C-alpha cells in the first residue's frame, strides 16, 4: 500500500465533519423515540456466516447484553459502534467464546456459526477459536521472536508438515498483514520490539496464520497513530476478500470507511443495524442520531 493511498483515505475520513451529517439527517425524517429499545433496521442478511438469536449476557447480576439478534454476512465487514460500556466488546467476545475466561460470565440465547451452535454443551472451543480469530484492542504480541509469534498458531494446530511449509505460512501471513517488507530481515527479533502499529499488524498476521474464516477485531486501532490506523484500515479492506470481519470501534469515521453494515449498541441493547452509508446519513433511531452527531458518547 502506498503513502498516497494512506493520505487519501485519511482525508476521505475527515472530509465529512460530524455536524454536517447531523444537520442533514435532522431535516429528513422523524426518528424512532429514545425510549424504544426494539432493534430497527437490517438485522438479517440472505447468506449469513453467523446468526445470533436472542443473545443475553450476564456478568454476575449485571445484564450486559439484552436480547440481541443479528446476522453476520459472508465476506462483509460489520462495524459495531456505541458509547463506552454499551456491550459491544462483550458481544464480540461471545462470538468466539472468549467470555469463557471471565469468571461469572453467563451467555444465553443462540449463536450459530454456519449450522453449528457454538454454545452447545459438548462443543470444543479450540477448533471454534481457530475458525473465528480475534485481534485485541491493545497489541499483545507474545514475548517471542516475530517469526515465532506468527508460527505459534500453525504449530499448535499442526498446519505445516515441514519447516519450509511453516516458513511459507509465516511469510504469507506477514505479507497479507502488510508487514513482510518491514520485518523480513529481522524475523528473529522479539515481536515486542516493534512499534505499536507494527505490533498490531503482527497480531493480525498471527490471527491470519491460523486460517480463520471470521476475524473479530476489538478496537484494533485505538492504540495507534493515524498513519498506522490507515495501514490497518487498508488491510481490513484487503482482508474482506477472503474473510468475514466484525470490528468494534469508537471511531465513527473508521466505521464509515471500512464497513458495509453498522450496528449501534446502547446500554446493552442493539438499537439499530443498517447499511453503513445509511446509518451515518439517515439513522432511523433517535439514539443513533444522538450518538453519531456527538450529543453523547
Amino acid at each position: 500500500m502506498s503513502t498516497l493511498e494512506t493520505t487519501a483515505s485519511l482525508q476521505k475520513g475527515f472530509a465529512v465533519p460530524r455536524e454536517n451529517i447531523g444537520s442533514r439527517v435532522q431535516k429528513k425524517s422523524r426518528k424512532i423515540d429514545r425510549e424504544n429499545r426494539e432493534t430497527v433496521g437490517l438485522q438479517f442478511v440472505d447468506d449469513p456466516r453467523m446468526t445470533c438469536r436472542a443473545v443475553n449476557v450476564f456478568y454476575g447480576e449485571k445484564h450486559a447484553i439484552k436480547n440481541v439478534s443479528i446476522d453476520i454476512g459472508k465476506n462483509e465487514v460489520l462495524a459495531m459502534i456505541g458509547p463506552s460500556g454499551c456491550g459491544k466488546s462483550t458481544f464480540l467476545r461471545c462470538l468466539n467464546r472468549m467470555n469463557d475466561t471471565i469468571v461469572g460470565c453467563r451467555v444465553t440465547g443462540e449463536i450459530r456459526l454456519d449450522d453449528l451452535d457454538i454454545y452447545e454443551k459438548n462443543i470444543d472451543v479450540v477448533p471454534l477459536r481457530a475458525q473465528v480469530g480475534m485481534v485485541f484492542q491493545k497489541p499483545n504480541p507474545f514475548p517471542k521472536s516475530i517469526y515465532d509469534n506468527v508460527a505459534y498458531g500453525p504449530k499448535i494446530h499442526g498446519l505445516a508438515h515441514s519447516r519450509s511449509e511453516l516458513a511459507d505460512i509465516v511469510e504469507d501471513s506477514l505479507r497479507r498483514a502488510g508487514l513482510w517488507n518491514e520485518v523480513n530481515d529481522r524475523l528473529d527479533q522479539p515481536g515486542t520490539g516493534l512499534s505499536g502499529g507494527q505490533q498490531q499488524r503482527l497480531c493480525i498476521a498471527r490471527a491470519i496464520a491460523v486460517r480463520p474464516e471470521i476475524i473479530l477485531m476489538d478496537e484494533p486501532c485505538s492504540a495507534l497513530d493515524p498513519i498506522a490506523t490507515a495501514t490497518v484500515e487498508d488491510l481490513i479492506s484487503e482482508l474482506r476478500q477472503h474473510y468475514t470481519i466484525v470490528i468494534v470501534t469508537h471511531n465513527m469515521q473508521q466505521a464509515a470507511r471500512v464497513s458495509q453494515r453498522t450496528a449501534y449498541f446502547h446500554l446493552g441493547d442493539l438499537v439499530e443495524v443498517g447499511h453503513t452509508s445509511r446509518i451515518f446519513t439517515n439513522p432511523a433511531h433517535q439514539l443513533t442520531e444522538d450518538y453519531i452527531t456527538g450529543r453523547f458518547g
Partner: protein
Amino acid sequence: MSPSLLIAVLLVLSSMAYWLGRSRAFALSKKAGSVRLHSRPGYHGILVALWCAIPAFIIFCCWHFFSGNLLISYAMQSVTEARGELSPSEMNLAINDLRNLLSGSVFHREIDPALQLAADRYTGMRQIANVALAVVVLSSAILGSIWAYSRINPGLRARNKVEKAVEISLTLCSTIAVFTTLGIVLSVIFESIRFFQQVPFFDFLFGLKWSPQMAMRPDQMGTGSFGAIPVLAGTFLISAIAMSIAVPFGLLSAIHLSEYSGPNFRKVVKPMLEILAGVPTVVYGFFAALVVAPTIRGLGAGIGLSVASESALAAGLVMGVMIIPFVSSLSDDIINAVPQSLRDGSYALGATQSETIKNVVIPAALPGIVGSILLAVSRAIGETMIVVMAAGLAANLTLNPLQAVTTVTVQIVTLLVGDQEFDTPKTLAAFALGLLLFVVTLALNVIALYVVRKYREEYE
C-alpha cells in the same frame, strides 16, 4: 543525667522546636500578607526540629563511641604512676582487671590499691563527664534551634532542605545493608587468610579428606586434614535431592494454583502452603530424624539395600518439602503477573489451556521462576538444622544418597560450638568454609542471572 533521660529530653526539645518553628512560620504568613511563604509552615517546623536534634545527637553518639577508651586511659594513669611503665600485655591485663572491678565481677581477690584508685578516678570522671555531656548536648540543641528559628523568613527554602535531609537519611538506610555485607565478607576473608597461612590453599580446596582434629598436646600425633571436597559434595548432594523435590512440586503447584484452581481453592491452599515455610527448621529436623529416616531405612531393608540410619536422602527429602513454598508461592505470584492479554491472545488463536501455559505463560514468567528457584537453592545450601539432625556428621565423600554425609554449614557449626581457641586451624577452618560457601552461592547467582538475561522473554 543518664543517657536515656538525655535522649528523652532531646526528643521533647525537638518537638517543642517543631511547634515553635511552625507557629513562627504561621505568624509570618499572616503578618506578611502579600508575601507568600516559600514552604508550608510544617516544613519550617521540621527544619527547626532537625537543627535541634541532629547536631546534639551526633555529639551524643560520638561521645559514647569514644568516651569508654578515653576514660579508661585516663584512669590507667594512676596505675602507671604506682607501678611505673607497663608492657602492652601487662597493660591489657590491668585494663581487664579494671573493667572487671568496675562491673563488680571481682569478689574474692585481693584488690590492688592502685587499681582501686584507678577505679575511683574512673567513676568520678564518669560522673563529671556525664554532666558535661548533658550540658554540651542540651546547649547544642538549644543553640541549633535558636539559630534555625531566627532564620525563618518567607523566602527560606525549608521544604527543599527537609527533602534533602530525608533523601540523605534514605541513602544512609540503603547503604547499611551494603556495609554490613562488606563487613561480613571482610571479616570472613581476614580469618580465612589466617587459616590459609597454616593450611595450604590447594590442600583445602582439593583435599579429599575432612577430619579437622588437631593435636592438643605435643605428644599427640598428627594434625587434622582439611580437604573441603567431601563437605562440599555433601552440600551439593543434599541440595540436589532437596531441589529435585522442591522444583517439580513447587512449580507444578504454582501452575495449578494460578491457572487451574478456582479462587476458593486458592484462597485456602496458598496460605497453607506458606505455613510450610513458617515451620521452624528444627521441627523439620526431628521429623526427618525420627520419622523419615527410619522409614527410608525400613524400606531400604525391605528391598535389600543397606541404608545408614542417618542418610542424605532423609535430610534432602524433608528439606525439599520445606522449600516447596519458596518455589510455589513466588512462582505463583509471578505467573499471576503475566498479563491476561497474552493468555487471551493465545486462546484466541485456538490454543488449549495447556498449550498456552507451556508456550506463553511459562516463558514469559521464566525470569521470575528462575529467581524463585535460586532463592530456594540458597535456602537449601544454607540449611543447617535438618542436616545436623538427619544426615549426620560423617564427612563421607560419596554420591550415594543412602549414606550419611555432612554439609558445609553443619561443619561450621560443629567447628565453632563449645570452647575453642581462635588460633588453631580447626576453628579458623570454619571461616574458610564460610568463605567457600559464599563464593559458591555467589557464583550460582551470577550464572543464574546470566542465564535469565539470555533467555528472558520480556512482555510489555
